[in-house]
Each structure stands twice: as C-alpha cells, then as structure tokens.
C-alpha cells in the first residue's frame, strides 16, 4: 500500500501539470510584475531600468492619491453595507423565516451570479436621465419631486452612491447566506441559556450571537473588503471611472496607465500598491480581531 501511495513518478504526473500551468500563469507573473516596477516602457517600445523612479512617482502622483482615497472610501462603504445588510438578512432568515427561508435565501442570493456588465447596464437604465428618464427619475417625476431629478451617474457624488448601491445589491444575499450558515451552527442550547438568563432582542444579538459569530464574520469581512478594494467590472461598466476621474479606483487607474498610456512599469507599481494595500487591510482585520478576542 505504502508503495502505491508513495510512487514518485505518479505524484509528479498527477500534480506536475497543474503546478506547471499555475506557476506559468500566476506565480511567474507575480514575480515578473515586481521586476517591472523597476522598469519603464512597454512591449512595443522595449524596457529600460529606472530604479526606484516609479515608486517616487507614485508618492507625488495626485491621480494615484485620488484613486486611493476613492478606493478606500468605496471599499469601506460597500463592505459596511454588504456585511451589515447581510447580517440583518441572516438574522431575518434564522429568527423570523426559519425553515421557510430557503426560497427567500435563494432569491436574495441570485444577483451574485449575474454578469456584472449586464447588471451595470440595467442600473444605467434605472438611473438614466437622457435620452429619457430612467425608473428613478421617472418615479421622482411622478411624485412631483422634480427638484430631486438629476443626472445620477453624471456627477461624482451621486455616481458614488449608485455604484455602492449596485454592489451592495449584488452581494448582500451572498453574505447573508455566508453568515446564515454561521448562525445555524450556533448551538440552540447556548441561545436558550442566554434567554433564560434574561438576554433578549438586541442584547442577545450583541452580547451572545455576534461574539459567537465572530470567526465567520471576520472571514466575510476579509472577503468583502478584498473584493471591494479590487472593484473593477462594476465601475468600468457603469461609469467608466467618470465623470472625469471622480469614480476611478486604483484598478481602473492601473488599467488605463498600462494599456491607454503604455506605461507598464508604473502600471505594475500601481498593481503592487493595490496588492500591498489588500494585504495590509487583511492583516489589520486579523490583528484587531485577535486583540478583541483576547
């Protein structure tokens, strides 16, 4: 038996191809990208070494800081919305709908699987102002709230909220299911015991359920913030980063730098900044959680 399971040639044949493709498409490019941050140029014009210049440029680039601030603001807003609404939904499923919740769970979950571009097209029409009013503006007109009618996607401030709304709409059902799975695993006896001790309602949720849910809440938080820091599809498809630069996140800025302006070195530096940002945020969440638990 040992012989069969320790067959070296078989192991290489089984795991080798996957490892090879994975290394070529994912691991090698990561290292390669790091190397690019010290170069300038592109595939057509060739590359030359510039040392730390890309990093110096990063620090003094106003567009980078603007994109960074937008990314953080967006990630915090959308993550808060996704997790909070997801949690409320999960509580609703468990405490109110209980066994009847399967249908609602399925329905609220489904936007997750829809193509982002399609959803963005749909939202663009819902919030449209020209050539004709979309659902929202038409609804406002119906209610005679003419002062509220506006180009929702044409101004940075409202475009931000439409984008946030769309991404929260898309993902809250996903987090609801994630947290629901955590909630049903809390032993009923624990909740009963807390109830007997007089905890109920918000206090029960805050003091008993949330602490018990903490591990899964953290996973959800990390997953959500990592997703929203890397937001690209929804923004490209809904606003294209505009008006002007107003809704351009780091990912889109990186994409434009690399492919519209052919600056591979600086583009790689921006991608690296994004990777480091995600890493720092993830570690920070882990760190604060550990302090909290201890």
């Amino acid at each position: 038996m040992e012989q069969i399971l320790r067959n070296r040639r078989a192991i290489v044949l089984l795991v080798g191809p996957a490892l090879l493709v994975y290394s070529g498409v994912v691991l090698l490019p990561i290292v390669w990208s790091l190397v690019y941050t010290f170069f300038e140029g592109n595939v057509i014009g060739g590359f030359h070494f510039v040392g730390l210049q890309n990093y110096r440029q990063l620090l003094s680039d106003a567009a980078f800081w603007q994109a960074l601030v937008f990314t953080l603001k967006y990630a915090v807003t959308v993550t808060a919305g996704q997790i909070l609404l997801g949690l409320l939904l999960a509580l609703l499923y468990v405490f109110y709908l209980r066994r009847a919740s399967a249908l609602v769970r399925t329905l609220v979950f489904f936007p997750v699987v829809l193509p982002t571009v399609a959803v963005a097209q749909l939202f663009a029409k819902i919030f449209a102002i020209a050539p004709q009013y979309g659902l929202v503006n038409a609804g406002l007109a119906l209610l005679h709230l003419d002062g509220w009618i506006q180009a929702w996607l044409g101004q940075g401030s409202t475009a931000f909220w439409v984008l946030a709304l769309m991404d929260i709409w898309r993902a809250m059902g996903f987090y609801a299911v994630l947290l629901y799975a955590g909630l049903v695993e809390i032993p009923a006896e624990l909740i009963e015991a807390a109830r007997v001790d007089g905890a109920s309602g918000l206090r029960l949720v805050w003091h008993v359920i949330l602490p018990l849910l903490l591990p899964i809440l953290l996973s959800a938080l990390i997953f959500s913030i990592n997703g929203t820091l890397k937001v690209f599809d929804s923004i490209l498809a809904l606003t294209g980063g505009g008006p002007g630069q107003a809704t351009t996140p780091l990912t889109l800025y990186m994409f434009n730098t690399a492919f519209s302006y052919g600056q591979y070195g600086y583009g790689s530096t921006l991608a690296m900044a994004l990777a480091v940002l995600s890493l720092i945020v993830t570690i920070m969440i882990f760190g604060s959680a550990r302090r909290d638990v201890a």
Partner: protein
Amino acid sequence: MMRSDVAARSSRPAPAPVFTRVARWSPRSRSQRQPRRRRLSWLWRLPVRLLLLLLLTIEIYPLIWLLLSSFKEDAEFSLRPLWALPAGLHWQNYVEAWTTGNIGLYFLNSVLTVFPALALILALSVPAGFALEVMRWRGRNLVLLLFLAGIMVPLQILLLPLFTIYFHLDLIDTRWALIITYTGFGLPLTVFLMAGYFKAIPRELLEAAILDGAGLVQLFLRVAVPLVSNGLVTVALVQFFFLWNDLLFSLTFISNDQLRTIQTGLLNFTGQYGQVAWGPTFAAVSLAVFPTLLLYLLLNQRVIKGLTAGALKG
C-alpha cells in the same frame, strides 16, 4: 468578550423583551409558544412582512422590468410610463441584438473559451487534488500552500506580464490567450477545493481498495473520482460563473470584435447603438442575464454552497 455577560445577566432582573420573536430561537421551541404571544405576534409580524415585501421587490423587480422592457418598441419608452407593460411582444429587439448586435457571436465566443478552460481546469486539478490529499510525499503541504497563495492575488498583478508573454507568443487576440489564463487562474481555488473533497473520503475505503489489489490508476479513476463527483460538479459550477462573468482578462487580451466574449461585447453594446435604442439593449442584457439565471434556478443550492465554500476557503 462574552465571558461575563451571560453570567452577569443571571443576577439581574430580566429586562423586558425587546423582540419577542427573536427570543424564540429554534423551531423546537415552537411548542412552548404561549397564546398571549400569538396575539402579539400578528402586530409584530406586519412590519417584518412589509420589510420582506420591500426586500423581494428590490431584488426581483429590476429583472422583471428588464424582461418587460426588452419587449417594448422604442417609441414606448418615451410615450408611455417606464413601468407600463409592453404593448406587444416586440421580438424584433432580440433579433436585432442577436444578429446586428453580434450577441450571438459573443455568446459563441464565450462558450468556446469558457468550456475548454473549464475542461482543462478539471483535468488538471482533480489529479492534483488527489496527489495532494491521498498520496504521501514530502512537500505536500508546501505545494498546497503555494496553490492557496494564488487565491487572493489581485488579477491586476498578472495582467502586464501575461500580456507580454502572449504578445511574444503571438497569442494576443486569440482564444488561446483566454483559455490559458482562465485555466491558470481557476486552478488554485479548484485544486484547493478538490483536495478538500478527497480529504473527506474515509481513508479505510481507499486502503481496502488497495488491499483488494487496485492499482493507482484504478484507485484514482474507479474509487476516488466517483466518490468526489458531487464536489466536482460544484466546483465546475463555481468556476463556470467566475469565467463566464470575466471582464478584465477578455478586455485585456482581446481587441478583435469577432472574438469578443459576451461581457466585453455587452460592454460595448451601448456604444454601437448610442443610448437611443433601449429596446435592443434591454434584449441584449436579457440574453446575457437569463441563461445564467436559469442555470442558477435549476441548481441553486449547489451554486450557493459552492460559492460560499470558495469564500470561506479564500
């Protein structure tokens, strides 16, 4: 955090219940319900019911609106309220989207890149998962960790080196660029999940098969793979949704309109008609949305399970 709270509660007088409903934790305690509560609960139910109605409206109405709008003639959008039912079934929108709007072509392109990639991902990751969980060798954990590292990497980091590689291999603007990228990008999560499924097979079962004289090939194909076939379908579904909805890679590696996938095609759809022709645009969006939705409705529990498993592992 909760250490003292529960204990402290017991010494205090019980606070008035805020949410009576919440206090009823599990279906099991239903039998303990008191008649007084039942009367109260109707009042409590009303706002929650309304909330639920609002929630379902927010979730579903946009799609109903999309479907209804896709059957409207252009004049209807400006002449009648947006929420009005279509005057008739204007199939012309679909014909226009499918043919002149090229959605048919984009659909085909998506199928021709996503399914080969899906097949490759499974062909590579099932043996790899088997080797990582069932076989015994040093460095197993290291390799597993290596695969794990790829799950969280921002795609943006991969773009420029991959573009350079494909550029030199003359693969830009070919389906191969997408198939290769999709495969490599889909591997880490799939390998990781497959390894998990193989791990769940009782060790004794595999040992018994070996004692009965099964060789490695038989052990893998006849015993192990059939046992994880359920998981296999789940992972395939998850990867299908990821790849089918990909925008970034297809945007980067494909600029030839004839090779565009459904997402990039849809992205440029507005440009083609300007913003005037709402009907065909709605039809195109419907064509992109409803097949995915149908797949989801058929297999929803599996999809939900698969996608959330991916999140927790990640």
